[in-house]
């Protein structure tokens, strides 16, 4: 059963240097506060996995937490580049960043295979692209019935998955709704997990479009209101589009980024 802890304790107990850590949330419910806590705790050499690294991963990469990035799309949605990610890849600052690069379909299937206890997933994907030349985890696989050649990608089983949700009950059952992305798969694929939530309630009420992650598949739940800002939490707060735009200027410059980091 999931234990209710504070954010610092949850991160400290779960995230170790060198771990593969997935912070998921597809535009919605991005666990930003947990990412900041990982920065504050000074974690290093992480393999950071995420379908769409956005500004929280830009921050973690700029802060020097990451050795490797597992991803499909790294940008500031609707704004432009992730400048800390680019600085790491293009100029090795603050240190070089290895890439394990996939497509969205590939990443989604990697998590789904991980959640399913399978070593790989099969999809129609990557054929004719240059990705298989640079990403080891893309291989052909032949259908034993039709002979058709498809693509296999390896399961992604993070050491730690972290997601943000709208609410949990006191027993640690977690409920989220709206765009729920690949969060269920990330939690079920991971060895350990942390869910930050807007609210802890006595009883989860029914809610259309919601999914529930039962307490017994979650390690820790932490009450972190606003923990998804500047992304949004449907029913709680809107996306802070202004900050996404402001991040472009903050992150372009190493010194301005350093100033931002010192305030964290």
């Amino acid at each position, binding site marked *: 059963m999931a234990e209710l802890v504070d954010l610092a304790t949850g991160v400290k107990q779960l995230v170790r240097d060198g771990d593969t850590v997935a912070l998921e949330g*597809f*535009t*919605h419910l991005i666990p930003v506060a947990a990412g900041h806590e990982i920065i504050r705790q000074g974690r290093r050499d992480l393999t950071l996995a995420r*379908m*769409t690294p956005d500004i929280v991963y830009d921050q973690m990469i700029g802060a020097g937490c990451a050795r490797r990035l597992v*991803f*499909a*799309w*790294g*940008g500031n*949605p*609707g704004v432009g*580049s*992730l400048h800390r*990610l*680019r600085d790491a*890849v*293009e100029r090795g600052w603050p240190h070089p960043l290895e890439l394990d*690069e*996939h*497509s*969205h*379909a590939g990443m*989604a*299937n990697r*998590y*789904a295979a991980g959640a399913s206890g399978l070593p790989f997933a099969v*999809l*129609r*994907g*990557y*054929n*004719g*692209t*240059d*990705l298989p*030349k*640079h990403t080891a985890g893309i291989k052909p696989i032949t259908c034993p019935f039709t002979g*058709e*050649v*498809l693509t296999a990608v390896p399961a992604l089983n993070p050491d730690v998955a972290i997601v943000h949700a709208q609410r949990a009950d006191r027993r640690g059952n977690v409920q989220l709704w*709206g*765009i*729920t*992305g*690949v969060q*269920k*798969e990330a939690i079920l694929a991971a060895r350990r997990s942390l869910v930050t939530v807007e609210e802890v309630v006595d009883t989860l009420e029914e809610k259309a*479009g919601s999914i529930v992650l039962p307490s017994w598949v979650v390690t820790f739940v932490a009450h972190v209101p606003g923990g998804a800002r500047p992304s*949004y939490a*449907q029913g709680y707060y*809107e*996306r802070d*589009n202004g900050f*996404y735009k402001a991040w472009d200027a903050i992150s372009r410059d190493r010194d301005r980024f350093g100033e931002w980091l010192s305030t964290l």
Partner: protein
Amino acid sequence: MTFTAEEMMTITAARALTGHGSCFVGIGLPSLAANLARRLHNPDLVLIYESGTIGAKPSRPPLSIGDGELATTADAVVSVPEVFNYWLQPGRIDVGFLSAAQVDRFGNLNTTVIGGSYQNPAVRLPGAGGAPEIAASCREVILVVRQSKRAFVERLDFVTSVGFGAGPGDRRRLGLRGSGPVMLITDLGVLRPDPQTCELTLTNLHPGVSEDAVREATGWALKTSETLATTKEPTDEELAALRELTDDDE
């Protein structure tokens, strides 16, 4: 009304969705064009975003593909694995809309790296996202790229998504089941694949644009269709609807 090249491009993209049932929408211009089409001439167009929102009906174009309004107005919200596996991959979506930093004459796209090597690129772009499988699996693909020599290149620095590969027959050889790009809409005109060679060929000039101007903004020896036409100017209704949509945007 007067109009900008950007407006002409967006309206051309919206018009291209006439008669289509469903559209897999990327963020930015594709989303704007798809929402414009819903307002103008295709109110039943089903918009599918890779965030898992199927049948979204946003009142304003979303800033990101995961905006809350997409979920609250959708017919169904599904997980991201499901939207790719059950909805995109089987080829049940009519049109995919894609853009790119680089496009070549066969409609192949690069959104990964420019210059240098993959390991040490001059410019690291965001990457593939949903594009490779959108390009592979939608029944048709519409490309929208602002035209320039930097973007319309002889040779891509990286193939992120496949149009016609190296030419006729390549899609079948690669097992890509959609029919590939049907048009490339730019701010200057429209290119369509030649039925024989699959090479993107200039078929439309936007009003006031010369063939030479398009040629100069293209990094390969651009061919022109024998039936080169001029794009119909935006109507007042189209422009009004577009500006209403974009004025809403912050």
